[in-house]
């Protein structure tokens, strides 16, 4: 459709949403960082964030807030609970759930947390649990790396 045939009402609606629900500050920059740190030669299933929420653990200030994140990809979901440890340090408790039928042995997974400061790894236990006891706050990305031939999973960049 040519722009000149456009209903002017649509332009008004467009201005409305641009003003009402603007692109979040820093999103474009985060996308550019995500693209810059993405190693294209590796094949990953992309995990998509479906939920993010703050949970108030105590009644005092925001320091007590736990962050809950949930990601999904075909066949697998990951839930992360992030709690403040001390200052800029965070504890992450993670749970991996496979949504496909558990037929036979599940391959062992390793969780690998990429951050600007470096990468930390943690084994995923029998029941899908893993933890990072103390990692810096900031931009992070989680990979789930398999020992078998199964596909590996990667989240997008997220802030903890």
């Amino acid at each position, binding site marked *: *459709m*040519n*722009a*000149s045939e*456009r*209903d*002017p*009402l*649509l*332009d*008004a*609606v*467009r*201005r*409305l*949403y*641009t*003003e*009402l*629900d603007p*692109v*979040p500050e820093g*999103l*474009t920059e*985060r*996308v*550019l960082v*995500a*693209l810059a740190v*993405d190693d*294209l030669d590796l094949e990953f299933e*992309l995990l*998509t*964030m*479906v*939920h*993010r929420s703050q949970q108030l653990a105590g009644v005092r200030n925001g320091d007590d807030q736990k962050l809950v994140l*949930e990601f*999904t990809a075909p066949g697998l*979901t990951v839930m992360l609970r992030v709690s403040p440890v001390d200052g800029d340090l965070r504890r992450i408790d993670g749970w991996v759930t496979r949504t496909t039928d558990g037929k036979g042995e599940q391959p062992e997974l390793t969780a690998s947390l990429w951050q600007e400061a470096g990468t930390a790894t943690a084994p995923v236990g029998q029941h899908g649990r893993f933890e990072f006891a103390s990692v810096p706050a900031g931009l992070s990305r989680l990979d789930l790396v398999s020992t078998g031939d199964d596909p590996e999973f990667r989240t*997008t*960049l*997220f802030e903890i």
Partner: protein
Amino acid sequence: MAASDLEGRPESAETSVWVRAARCFERWQGGEAAALDELVRIMTPVLWHTIRAYGLAQAAAEDAVQNTWLALVRNGHQVTESAAIGGWLLTTARRTAWRAKSSDTRAMPTEDAQLAAGLPASAAAETSALEQLGGSVLWEHVRGLDERCQRLIRIVAFDDRPDYSGIAKDLGMPIGSIGPTRRRCLDKLRNSLEKGGQL
């Protein structure tokens, strides 16, 4: 076509998004890495509004935008015509949004109230009645439409060449009905504004 051929041409801001995106994509495919950054800056707002039209919460919508771009650097070679890049990105964004939306079984808290709080009472002084229409007034009328109308109108407001068959599938409507529904939704909005004495 060389970029300079197009630059002198009077284009509406809307047309130029698609043309500029196609040019950037072409340059990126030609090996100019910085052209991808430019493409991201041009198309991210369009992707954002399309994804939000599917009702994703803020964080999930940001994530879907990121995933759309990751999909481009991984699968962008599938796009053989540079003019098709805008459509490819929007289709990918819609699929990502749809997948995320259907995986999140939680009830979505409505963000309407928060959204409206950010609106100034009136738009900057402009000429036509529509342009003078305050954001909060228009929002009241848009909110009065059913959810399907609201989504469809938001999607087409940011996409001049909408992929009707994809949208039809996502919104659970027959393809042939998207065009008429779009007109009906816009008519409803216009009638509502007229009734309210806004037009």
